[in-house]
């Protein structure tokens, strides 16, 4: 990895830490999954397409904090390849949606799907707006139970929802013990830890609980920030990881990367097909493999029906208008996005993001090809 890239990632982590609420991922790599070395694509095989001459050499984007380390890496790499400088501000998904609606940026980025109210506002400002998937991430359920090893604790969706609803309050509750024969569970109270700041991680996690539990769906629902039934809020992934590590009997949810950085054990969660799955890049990618994906890609991957999928997974999207008002900038944007979903995918695993599945790449390709200027598609594929 080039030094500049490492620096960018470290800088990103520091910047996010300084901002407090940010989610960051370190530049550490795992030995678990080797980089796939470029995602195969139906139309372009490993060739880098730079924007044609006359395209803009600078772009601005704003939005989600969750993919920021990856986006920084991409911006760095793409800038070296094609001489396009991209300025991405990780101000949060809500901010990204506001900025793209106000058209102060060339693209937005979000961990969640835009609300109807937001879509209406954006469409009024710039016409139809696309959700283009860039990568996906897994949310791990972490715990602090002395003597219980990583993956040993098995949780069914119902049990997980009941713990977060504060209906199950002791670790040796018969409902937990039923799935964990042979694991010694103490009689301690369960301290439920959640994110205190609004975040895409919370969006994915609560969306999962809403899908698997009618009661959760009715009483709490899902959003980047919800009215939690109980216990402790931690600021940022780091805050949650820290609370879980400090409090015996705690349970929490963090981005996968944070379990590795903080040495926190994760639980296996039962997926839709009844298999207990541990979070990993493979099981996260699987969530979007072999399942029907809509053309607009406004899909939440939680509780995937793929039998090899980890159930708490979500896409993060770039938001862009179909009808670009500036040809030069639109061209630079589509070539950047095209590069990101193909060659860019090789950088995902090192930073602990799950690469897009081939199905997701195909859908994203169609979306990028639809971006046009005065009715003319901006991307010229060979």
């Amino acid at each position, binding site marked *: 990895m080039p030094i500049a890239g490492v620096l960018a990632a470290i800088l990103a982590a520091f910047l996010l830490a*300084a901002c*407090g*609420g940010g989610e960051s991922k370190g530049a550490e790599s795992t030995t678990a999954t080797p980089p796939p070395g470029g995602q195969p694509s139906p139309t372009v095989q490993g060739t880098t397409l730079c924007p044609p001459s006359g395209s803009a050499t600078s772009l601005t984007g704003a939005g989600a*904090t969750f993919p920021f380390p990856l986006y920084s890496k991409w911006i760095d790499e793409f800038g070296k390849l094609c001489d396009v400088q991209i300025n991405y501000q990780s*101000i*949060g*998904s*809500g*901010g990204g*949606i506001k900025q793209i609606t106000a058209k102060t940026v060339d693209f937005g980025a979000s961990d*969640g799907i835009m*609300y109807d*109210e*937001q879509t209406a506002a954006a469409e009024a400002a710039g016409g139809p707006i696309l959700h283009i998937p860039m990568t996906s991430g897994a949310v791990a359920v972490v715990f602090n139970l002395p003597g219980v090893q990583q993956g040993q604790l098995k949780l069914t969706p119902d049990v997980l929802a009941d713990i977060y609803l504060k209906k199950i309050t002791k670790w040796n509750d018969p409902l937990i013990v039923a799935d964990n024969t042979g694991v010694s569970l103490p009689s301690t*109270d369960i*301290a439920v830890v959640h994110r*205190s*700041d*609004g*975040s*895409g991680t919370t969006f994915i996690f609560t969306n999962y609980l809403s899908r698997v539990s009618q009661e959760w769906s009715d009483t*709490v*629902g*899902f*959003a*980047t*920030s*919800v*009215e*939690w039934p109980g*216990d*402790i*809020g*931690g*600021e940022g992934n780091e*805050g949650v990881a*820290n*609370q879980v590590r*400090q*409090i015996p009997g705690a349970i929490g949810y963090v981005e996968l990367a944070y379990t590795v950085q903080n040495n926190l054990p994760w639980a296996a969660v039962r997926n839709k097909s009844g298999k207990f799955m541990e979070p990993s890049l493979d099981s996260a990618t699987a969530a979007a493999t072999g399942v029907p994906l809509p053309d607009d890609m406004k899909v939440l991957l939680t509780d995937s029906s793929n039998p090899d999928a980890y159930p708490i997974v979500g896409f993060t999207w770039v938001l862009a208008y179909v009808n670009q008002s500036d040809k030069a900038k639109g061209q630079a944007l589509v070539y950047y996005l095209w590069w990101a979903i193909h060659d860019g995918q090789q950088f995902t695993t090192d930073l602990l993001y799950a690469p897009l599945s081939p199905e997701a790449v195909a859908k994203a390709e169609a979306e990028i090809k639809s971006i046009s200027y005065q009715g003319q598609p901006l991307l010229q594929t060979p």
Partner: protein
Amino acid sequence: MQVGRGKSAAGLAGRRPWGTGNLGDALARAVFAGLGLSLLAVALLILYELVLESRRSISAFGWAFLTGTRWDPVDQVFGAAPAIYGTLVSSVIALILAVPISLGAAIFLSEMAPSWLRSPLSFLVEMLAALPSVVLGLWGIYVLIPWVRDPVETWLGGHLGFIPLFDGPPFGVGMLAAGLVLAIMVLPIITAIARDVMQAVPSSQREAMVALGATRWEVILGAVLPYCRSGLVGAVILGLGRALGETMAVTMVIGKGYNITASLFQPASTAASTLASEFNEAAYNLYVSALVELALILMGITLLVNILARLLVWRVARSPEVIAE
């Protein structure tokens, strides 16, 4: 909030106005008047912006926003009562802890410390005041919270758990931790100002007491403290102002529980911490508007505290002079 005793300065400005035909004087007067008014303009602009941005929330919830206890971004129901409660209670805890220590430290620094110790100690106090709050927050997470959980909360819960204040599971994060962090933040401010105020007491006051045969303790109690008590009240109020608005360090240790409970062990929220946590990802207009209204309320609370402080200082400042006459 240094209390001005400068009647004479105001009098001078009134009797001998600037600008006796000199262009330079007229120009200076205009420039400085503009600079002075710009402060007012900034304050009014902020107020205007806050009211403008929060009108959606104001029209949706009305006065019920002040008493509402739910903060549910999914159902789009917002109420500020737990945040107001958390803001006030955490600040009061901070003052209860910090004021006795600060006043004691200030008395020591001003009246008792040997001169070789005075400067290094004063320097340390001022350095503590300059500590960035995010650093204090990190220290809170890694050092203070584990200590608050065990032994502090475990002990309090075990021995005094029958008092509602100390009831509940010891999480570490929560109202008590926030109050402690705030106490550390306001401690140097109150100490530094209280010390300055005490040092401003004329030596003649002390000498008069000593001449009457008073001990050092009696001098402090009888001459120094009564003479500067309006300044001391001002120091405490400044500390309170800092505590009310403090954001980052509190956000990191308060644990964000959105409810009103007597227990100090429970996670809570302040107006500032809720804003800091949620503003970035506030996804729709009403949500943003409710957060801005929370900011407006926070501004209102600070304003109210300042007005009360003015009244208090004014009352306190008058009494010793009356006695003196």
